[in-house]
């Protein structure tokens, strides 16, 4: 059965190869990960502003630091789309043309994004860019503009449509001229795009993309049903030995991270966050794919094989790295442990979702969790003690319990095998 299943699955390899090496998906994923720095700093500012101990926000308001911190928020999370649009174009170009640093494409993308962003007028008659479209609401628009500009720039490069300078011109200077034609052409394109959208009931491109794409997608991909579906897909892929997280994340990362940014925006504005699920929720609840519990069970196992693996696997597992446990057990194509391997995440997600809905857990703030931080610290960025406790309970109590009955069965077999081979050795 095992052979049959793996042969059948091997036929899907070209598909995963395509997904995993798709330049657009890679660029999306790399760009979202690169926003981590500013988002983290911004979340920290928000966290201080709404700190659970009253004295902290009071001091910040009295000392004037509060306005500094809200500015930090505005120019990090509140301006997320600006970072995203630059990064999308830059990363797409470097994927297609490794010799191009992508900076010019990023600059053109930022310019184009601003071209389609409506100007507003503040009360004192100063022209101003409304921050509405620079934050979470503009993220999809930023992604589309960034990838589109990147793609057009690549076309120009590949077709060699550029102003060529004589060789004697210094490379730095000729680089500027090289990007002139794409800058002008793409710039004019987006000026026209802006005019076009101005004629529609949406008024501008961002509003159109938000209403037509981002909002409906949020309804579908941002539901607990979709989260569970993706979690199952991720674990089934892992069951076949494929890095499931890497396959599913690029598909939903933009949506989930923009939902997190919406939560942060709400909190910064003094309102209640509404999105229960999101990137932070998914990553914190399914941390380590709940494999830490199995590593703990192995540590105290009477089987020598598992005990040794437990010793190797426990430290990386405490940092959320579970390849040793996945490949060393192995969990891949291991039908005896398939059920917990595939369903544990879903169970944890459902429990956390229900606990949040009934108000025992707070809605996640939405700070992007950092992969590689140890258990507990990983959850700490949500700024809530109960979320830290939830991660600890899921990993240290729920996870071992969920693995226990299944592990006992494979352990029994392993012990039997070990004692038999011991007997044979002795009789020799």
């Amino acid at each position, binding site marked *: 059965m095992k052979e049959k299943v793996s042969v059948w699955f091997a036929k899907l390899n070209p598909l995963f190869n395509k997904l995993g090496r798709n330049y657009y998906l890679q660029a999306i994923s790399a760009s979202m990960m690169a926003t981590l720095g500013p988002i983290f700093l911004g979340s920290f500012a928000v966290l201080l502003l709404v700190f659970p101990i009253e004295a902290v926000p009071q001091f910040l308001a009295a000392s004037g630091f509060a306005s500094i911190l809200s500015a930090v928020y505005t120019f990090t999370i509140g301006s997320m789309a600006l970072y995203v649009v630059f990064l999308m174009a830059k990363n797409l170009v470097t994927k297609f043309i490794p010799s191009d640093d992508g900076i010019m494409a990023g600059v053109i993308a930022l310019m184009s994004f601003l071209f389609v962003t409506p100007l507003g007028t503040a009360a004192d008659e100063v022209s101003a860019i409304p921050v509405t479209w620079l934050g979470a609401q503009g993220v999809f628009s930023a992604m589309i503009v960034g990838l589109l500009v990147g793609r057009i720039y690549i076309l120009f490069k590949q077709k060699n449509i550029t102003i060529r300078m004589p060789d004697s011109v210094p490379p730095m200077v000729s680089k500027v001229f090289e990007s002139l034609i794409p800058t002008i052409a793409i710039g004019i394109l987006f000026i026209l795009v802006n005019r076009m959208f101005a004629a529609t009931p949406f008024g501008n491109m961002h509003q159109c993309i938000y209403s037509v794409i981002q909002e409906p997608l949020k309804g579908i991909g941002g539901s607990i049903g979709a989260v569970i579906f993706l979690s199952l897909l991720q674990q089934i892929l892992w069951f076949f030995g494929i890095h499931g997280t890497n396959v599913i994340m690029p598909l939903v990362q933009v949506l989930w991270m923009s939902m997190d940014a919406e939560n942060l925006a709400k909190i910064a504005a003094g309102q209640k966050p509404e999105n229960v699920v999101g990137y932070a929720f998914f990553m914190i609840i399914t941390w380590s794919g709940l494999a830490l519990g199995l590593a703990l069970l192995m540590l105290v196992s009477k089987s020598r094989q598992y005990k040794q693996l437990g010793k190797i696997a426990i430290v990386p597992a405490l940092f959320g*790295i579970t390849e040793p446990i996945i*490949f*060393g057990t192995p969990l891949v194509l291991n039908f005896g442990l398939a059920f917990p391997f595939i369903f544990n995440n879903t169970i944890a997600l459902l429990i956390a979702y229900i606990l949040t809905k009934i108000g025992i857990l707070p809605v996640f703030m939405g700070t992007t969790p950092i992969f590689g931080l140890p258990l507990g610290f990983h959850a700490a960025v949500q700024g809530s003690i109960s979320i830290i406790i939830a991660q600890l309970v899921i990993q240290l109590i729920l996870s071992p319990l969920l693995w226990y009955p299944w592990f006992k069965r494979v352990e029994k077999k392993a012990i039997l095998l070990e004692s038999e081979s011991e007997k044979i050795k002795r009789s020799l």
Partner: protein
Amino acid sequence: MTNITLVCAAGMSTSMLMTKMKASAEKEGIQARIAAMSESKFATCTEPTDILLLGPQVSYLYESMKGTYEPKGIKVAVINMVDYGMMNGEKVLEDALALLN
């Protein structure tokens, strides 16, 4: 000097194996330069590579990596799953060097 590059999705778990392999190479007096990185980073990496080892979690890349890099004289292989999980640097190094023969 043999150049071995390990790749996986993020370069995290391969870097653990890399440490083990380096230790084993040192112990046995094998001249090898071992590096670990993410699969996407490898495409733009300019360091020389003789043997390219894929983590089992990215084994689906094997065919296309082989197609790209074997014509360039690089040996491509997927690391044995259990050796990878047990972080058996000695065995992985041994298997890798055997590819050159």
